[in-house]
């Protein structure tokens, strides 16, 4: 029973192993007898391939855990590829620079100001710990308002001082990442604000954003929504090539982005009150509100992070495919949702996590890789993918035992009495037993 329940709880990882085994077992072999699937180059390729979907799926996990959904990530990613490519290849105040710089400055201002405020508040709370929980909840105007304001202004000024000179030349890799992340963040925040303030369904709001941002991306790209080619060395700075490279020839840089992001947000979910609130909101939003949680802020943050990660994913896309493309994100949101759901996160919210998403993303990546290694028709690949999504989710949602037979595993199982009753339907064993308890 224990072994079975352990297997059931870790079935996702077994699934990953299974796919890995299938890939290795049926891999085509080179003429010299080497297993192509297991070759280092192939595996790092998989990591590189999944990193874009992975980044987006990381943000999507946060949103889905709150019980929401973010359909706009594909468009946001595409928009950011356009912004990124434009900044990289065109000098001067292009549409991307005109939009990107003020947005970046504003985001940095707010972020730094909030951070300083947060730190002071934390310090005050630490100092007041043990006295009474309401102490330290308010800060004096200097630490509560003016210092954060000042800090934010200074930081924003520094960022502008760093970015404005790059407008005249062309943007470097750091500048591009900064700007696109902030652009994505603002779009995500817009999602969040509309959902929270308007009390609207996330599905509708992000759907509207998906459509609107796609249009914005095309408009920004200009000239019949053209693809913006990026050739590092000829029309873009050499250092952008960094994003395609391997760190000391071992780990692909996009993979590092993905793994770092998923680790940071994983830690956020597991070790901070913010993470606990995300789960609480998804589990029962009303109860979370009535527990005094500032639900609106937490939800806003989830959409904001989702947008930001989609923005960063856009940079990786430009690096990988050497172009900024308004239609780059078509279907990306669905891939991300599929990966999250395969990873065991409930679309209802409140259950799951990023470990699952990591596995879900990897399962997806390995699968595509295997199908490609076998040269399977790309349309057939889609058919197979669809079937595998359904199959995996079926195994996820219905417990293994349910599929195999009567056995029910440990999660949310019935109480002993009910269980006993389930095993013996159409008998009445309870009444005498209850009474025996009573008299004893």
């Amino acid at each position: 029973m224990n072994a079975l329940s352990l297997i059931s709880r870790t079935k996702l990882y077994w699934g990953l192993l299974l796919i890995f085994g299938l890939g290795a077992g049926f891999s085509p072999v080179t003429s010299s007898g080497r297993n192509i699937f297991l070759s280092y180059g192939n595996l790092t390729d998989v990591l590189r391939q999944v990193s874009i979907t992975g980044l987006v799926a990381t943000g999507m996990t946060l949103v889905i855990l709150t019980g929401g959904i973010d359909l706009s990530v594909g468009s946001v990613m595409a928009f950011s590829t356009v912004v990124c490519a434009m900044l990289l290849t065109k000098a001067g105040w292009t549409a991307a620079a005109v939009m990107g710089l003020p947005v970046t400055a504003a985001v940095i201002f707010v972020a730094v100001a909030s951070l300083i405020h947060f730190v002071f508040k934390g310090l005050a709370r630490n100092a007041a710990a043990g006295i009474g929980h309401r102490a330290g909840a308010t800060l004096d105007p200097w630490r509560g308002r003016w210092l954060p304001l000042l800090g934010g202004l200074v930081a924003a000024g520094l960022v502008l001082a760093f970015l404005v000179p790059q407008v005249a030349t062309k943007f470097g890799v750091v500048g591009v990442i900064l700007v696109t992340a902030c652009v994505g963040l603002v779009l995500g925040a817009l999602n969040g604000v509309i959902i929270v303030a308007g009390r609207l369904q996330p599905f509708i709001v992000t759907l509207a954003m998906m459509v609107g941002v796609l249009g914005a991306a095309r408009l920004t790209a200009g000239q019949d929504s053209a693809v913006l080619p990026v050739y590092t060395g000829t029309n873009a700075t050499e250092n952008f090539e960094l994003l395609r490279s391997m760190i000391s020839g071992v780990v692909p840089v996009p993979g590092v982005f993905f793994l770092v992001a998923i680790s940071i947000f994983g830690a956020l979910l597991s070790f901070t009150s913010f993470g606990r609130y995300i789960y609480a909101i998804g589990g029962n939003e009303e109860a979370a509100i009535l527990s005094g949680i500032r639900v609106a802020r937490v939800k806003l943050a989830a959409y904001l992070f989702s947008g930001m990660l989609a923005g960063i994913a856009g940079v990786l896309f430009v690096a990988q495919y050497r172009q900024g493309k308004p239609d780059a994100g078509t279907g990306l949101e669905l891939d991300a949702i599929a990966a999250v759901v395969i990873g065991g996160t409930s679309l209802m919210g409140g259950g799951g996590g990023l470990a699952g998403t990591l596995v879900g993303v990897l399962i997806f990546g390995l699968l595509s890789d295997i199908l490609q290694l076998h040269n399977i028709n790309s349309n057939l690949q889609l058919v197979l993918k669809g079937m595998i999504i359904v199959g995996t989710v079926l195994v996820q949602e219905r417990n293994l035992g349910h599929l195999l037979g009567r056995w029910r595993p440990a999660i949310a199982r019935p109480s002993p009495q009910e269980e006993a009753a389930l095993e013996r339907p159409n008998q009445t064993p309870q009444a005498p037993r209850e009474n025996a308890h009573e008299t004893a």
Partner: protein
Amino acid sequence: MRRVGSARPGGQRGPGEPRPFDGESTSSKGQPRASDGQPRPCDGEPSTTILRADGLSKAFSSVAVLHEVGIELRRGEVHALMGENGAGKSTLVKILSGVHAEHGGTIRIDGVETRFANVRDAERAGIAMIHQELNLVPELSVAENIFLGREPLIAGLVIDRRRMLTAARDLLRRLGIGIEPELRVSRLRVGEQQLVEIAKALSLDARMLIMDEPTSALSTAECRALFKVVRQLAASGVAIIYITHRLDEVTELADRVTVLRDGRHVLTARMAETSREALIKAMVGRELAESGRGRASSDGDVLLAVEGLSLDLPTPRGWRRALRDVSFELRRGEILGIGGLLGAGRTEILESIFGVDRGLRGGRILVDGVEAAIASPADAHRHGIALITEDRKGNGLHLASSIRDNITLASLAQMSRFGLRAFEAETSLARRVVDALGIRCASLEQAVTSLSGGNQQKVAIGKWLATKPRLLLLDEPTRGIDVGAKRDIYELIFSLAGEGMGILVVTSELPELLLLADRILVMCEGRMTGTLTRAAATQEAVMRLAAPGARNASGRAAA
């Protein structure tokens, strides 16, 4: 003899000819059928038993909620089922209507022992249940609701609207219900919706009808209409189990009455042979004997002052004023009870103080003499206010989460350092709360769903006690929990008040209100109708202030 489980011929009958209670189908056993002019057909007459249940028992998790309860139902009678909240009424009727398939004891219908695997089985046996929460689809018409899932079809494909409307109109007319079947249910008042539910149940050929507190949300006139239909049904031979805790209704309507207390059968009697006093005693039992706490301290500082509180709630048809000009003070260490009927605005007072955003709020709320800007529960939390909601499963707890996570949720911000959770401190806090409140559990990591109602309620209270509130708002703190846990919670409330916490408690159970409160504020239709001191507070006094109009007063005088 009819066998349960085999489809009755009536079950396949199209809705074109629903015959809920005409002579052929239900009075076919030679039973003298009362004419419609005589509302009480079976008083004093020999009646046939159609349902007999013996030794019904049911336990949830490890809490037994029903011990060996029996009930017998006769043709054409209105059988009142009474008892306080948590007495086991709902569990009993859920067994009878097939909701709880697993139980101890036997059910015989027409003398044949049967077992209901599900609600459908019970329906086939002729038992229909009308739940307290109505199960109608508001966007569909009356007729569509009545025949939902059994619509008459043309050529097996298209819904035959005309036939459906005619059938519904016939049915309603025979029940004496003057509702147009084309109307959308959302346009009906609650009382009318209740009547539609009855029509729906009878279109299923119900011989036994279970009604769970049907009048709890009805106006006087609506109650009258409902009673008329109920009497008419009984006259036509339908047996009715009528759950209520309003004595007026029982004396007016019931032929016989069964009282449950703490999951046990206390009494079954003919109404003619019992009295209101006997029923109250049977229902309340030892709980009335329980003493409250000693002298209340009335000399504490004013902790909370509410001035001119008003609340407008949005409705599809504009704004509804749920509270008007409510003003009161609560002192440190005082327990202030809020009494009144359902919908009188009691919960709205608590929610307004707690900053729950339901509508437009007016008036001032002062905490410690300073006006408090409370726009959200988070603000209330910062002011040291805690609300334990009436619907602990719906919005009081995260049922799937662990006990620890539930208890620490509201204190997480205080315990975290720079947003980082302090897991050890959380566990020890949860442990302290579990020990202090006597929450019975195997482990802190146990999901809250697996706990009994009483222990769940303690977790919900514990979540807020962990935040060390100064002001505790309790909404129906003992709803649906067993007697032992109730007593624990009473003691907890007394000791918290003893420590100087200000407590505002809303409860529908009058004995509980009288037991707990130092002072009682009575609400009626959104207004304060009076404040009673402990000395002046009796059930009658509270009810007199709580009743809209003079209905309850006259009902009481008659009895």
